[in-house]
């Protein structure tokens, strides 16, 4: 939480055109220790961003004047600020697809407040993971394009689920070093999902069958018995492994 305010409380900018929901959510989030500012529409939100940079943005998808998708796009142009989208639609809609590209997470209305708080916590946990927002070449057979939620395995694009993407973000941020199972569980699942290590095991197994050429003999996603997992680039005898150009050099472009 590098960008936290002086008080140490994570700052959230909440944007919703429904005043009742806006007030209610702001109250609940403040009660839970967040520094919350609110905006009633996209224009106001952009002005708030000029004044102060929050740690997290919560945006309603459907708003008059400027919808949540447009606002999220504008924000992402300026910096890679994590965004949670509130939406009355869920997956499978054409807008939902576009939304998954710009939003770290989204929550479907109607939602229980604890669900939202759990998502907020999970997204904020990931703030320390700095992974360049571009293709990550891990070897001749594997390239991860996490912001597009896909992996390119042997030249073939393979879709990744949101959980798989979250796990890969956590692993890629610590490329080559082990990430504990506990950390991965808190990154992959929110507290309300009642996840246990078996979720992680099965998800890792499914992930291997997607990104490894031979799932039984993984070369990228390795188990560190009793500790956790690590993601490693494949041994590259030809030395042609492309390093992501400019990764980390631009502070506004890097980081999740």
């Amino acid at each position: 939480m590098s960008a936290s305010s002086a008080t140490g409380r994570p700052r959230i900018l909440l944007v919703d055109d429904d005043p009742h929901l806006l007030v209610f959510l702001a109250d609940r989030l403040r009660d839970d220790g967040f520094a919350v500012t609110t905006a009633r529409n996209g224009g106001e939100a952009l002005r708030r961003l000029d004044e102060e940079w929050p740690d997290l943005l919560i945006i309603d998808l459907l708003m008059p004047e400027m919808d949540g998708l447009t606002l999220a796009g504008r924000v992402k142009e300026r910096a890679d600020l994590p965004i949670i989208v509130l939406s009355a639609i869920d997956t499978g809609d054409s807008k939902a697809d576009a939304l998954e590209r710009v939003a770290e997470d989204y929550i479907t209305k109607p939602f229980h407040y604890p669900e939202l708080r759990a998502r907020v916590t999970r997204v904020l946990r990931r703030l320390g993971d700095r992974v360049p927002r571009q293709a990550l070449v891990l070897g001749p057979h594997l390239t991860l394009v996490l912001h597009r939620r896909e992996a390119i395995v042997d030249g073939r694009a393979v879709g990744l689920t949101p959980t798989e993407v979250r796990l890969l973000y956590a692993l890629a941020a610590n490329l080559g070093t082990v990430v504990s199972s506990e950390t991965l569980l808190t990154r992959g699942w929110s507290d309300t999902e009642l996840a246990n290590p078996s979720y992680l095991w099965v998800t890792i197994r499914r992930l291997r069958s997607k990104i490894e050429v031979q799932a039984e003999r993984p070369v990228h996603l390795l188990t560190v018995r009793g500790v956790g997992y690590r993601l490693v680039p494949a041994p590259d005898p030809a030395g042609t492994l492309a390093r992501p150009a400019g990764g980390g050099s631009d502070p506004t472009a890097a980081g999740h």
Partner: protein
Amino acid sequence: MRSALARLPYRTRLTLAMVGAALVPLLALALALGALTAAMRGEADQRLTGAAKAVAAQLSDATLDAATAARVAAQIGLTVAVYDSEGALRGRSDTTLASGVLPDPPPAAAHALVHRGGVTSVFATVTGTDGVREGYVELAALQAGPLSADLDVGTLLALVLGFGIALALLIGWVLARVMVRPLGSLSAAVSRLEAGHLDERLPVEGEDELAAVAASHNRLADALAARNRSLGLVLGAIAELAPNRGLDAVLSAAPAAAAKAFGFTAVSVSLAGPESAPRPTVVEDHVPGEPWAFPTLLRAAGEPVGTLWTTIPPTREWAQADQDLLELFAIELAAGIRNAQLFGEVERLSETKSEFLRGVSHNLQTPLTTIRAIAGQLAEQAAARPDRRLAIIVEQSERLSRLVDQLLTVSRLEAGTLRPKIEVFAPAPLVARAWESLGHGDDGFALRDEASGWLAAADRDRVDQVVWALLDNAMKYGHPPIAVTVRAGAGMDDLPTGDWLVVTVRDHGQGIPEDDRSRVFERFSRLGDGGAGGTGLGLSVARGLVEAMGGRLWIAPTDGPGATLAFSLPAERIEEA
């Protein structure tokens, strides 16, 4: 005769023609020879007859015996035989030529001419001065002619003609074979051309007619290959008109495609309709040596769609075949434009519908979220003195938003745009939470989890929707206790191969009558007079959702009263990875 001749193979006819041509001089020669022979014989016969008459006159009153015959023969240098008046031979000068026999009947007053074996004999009557017939005299000589007496001219001619015909047939047959051979290779080349070998050409040797035929065949093959190429180009151009990429894509792809396929210098497409630009109605005729612009009307299903304007360069020849291809292209372009228009319209309508549903959903769900959140907060604050009314507000607002969600899901299932997000999770806690949200308390509900060691691989939110619909249905149409069981099973309940988790929801109501079982999953069907007033969508949506996740939803057999609904989800075995 002519048609019968025409039916003969060409080679036979050619052979016959050559034999015929060869026989004409031969026949003429034979005829001339015959005529000459006849003339010579006539003359010889006349001479012989004259001589016979003279001899007969000379022998009048002479003794007709061998001595006389010899004397006369010596005198005139011909073979002479004499006969008495009865016709008996009295003597002859030699035995080889004179026949020694009178012809039957014997010559009367004058003479008789007899041809026999290459010998001509003339018999004349010898009459005494008293006018009484004294006997006969025969003068014989070798038959006159260009050949020897042994060889009959007719036989010779027949032999020569026969041999000549045979030789002519043989030579003609061989020659015809040689002459017909280039035609055979031409025919084979045409067959190969017909079979699609457009790149094969005939060798052109010399400058004769066959060479001309070969050259013209090659030109034909060239022309066919060129047509084939332009047809390929046109088909390629048509393939570039992908109506699913939208009208603009079709309109921007068409000119370049047409220009490439036909060699046009300028192509434009104007759409039919009020907004289309006014176009010249008079088309100038094609002046050779100048570029020519002409329109092709685009029609789809009889309706004008637009006009294709094309300009051909002065160097380009425009044949009927080109026109045919252009019309083919125009038909496809018109269809492509029409399809793109319809496709765009459908997409617009579909997007309008999605927009509408998003709006409805948003406008209903946002206030419901607020209502539920605030009621929930109030209930928390009043935890010391629980107020059941607040719980009812929470439950009912949740129920309402789930029903709105069902409507949205129906439209997704219909459009086939529902794409489940597959994650792994344990279904039992999700079932417990769904029951909790219904607000019926803990009584009358039993959950048995027999699937330890397994996780479902499905869309969590969608499974929640399914479980809620089944529980809601069980409460509405059945009676408590509601028993939910989660089992892991491979190969049970006629499930397909693979690992499955099966969730069964059993109520203790009246059960589902056999007759209604197929109707249960129909949309807007509500059985009996449950009266609880659902949307009639619950089970239909639930089945659609389960199937979208790769599972099945069915009515399972029930032991005792009540109904059991079951659904399967793909399962993953828990193993440390």
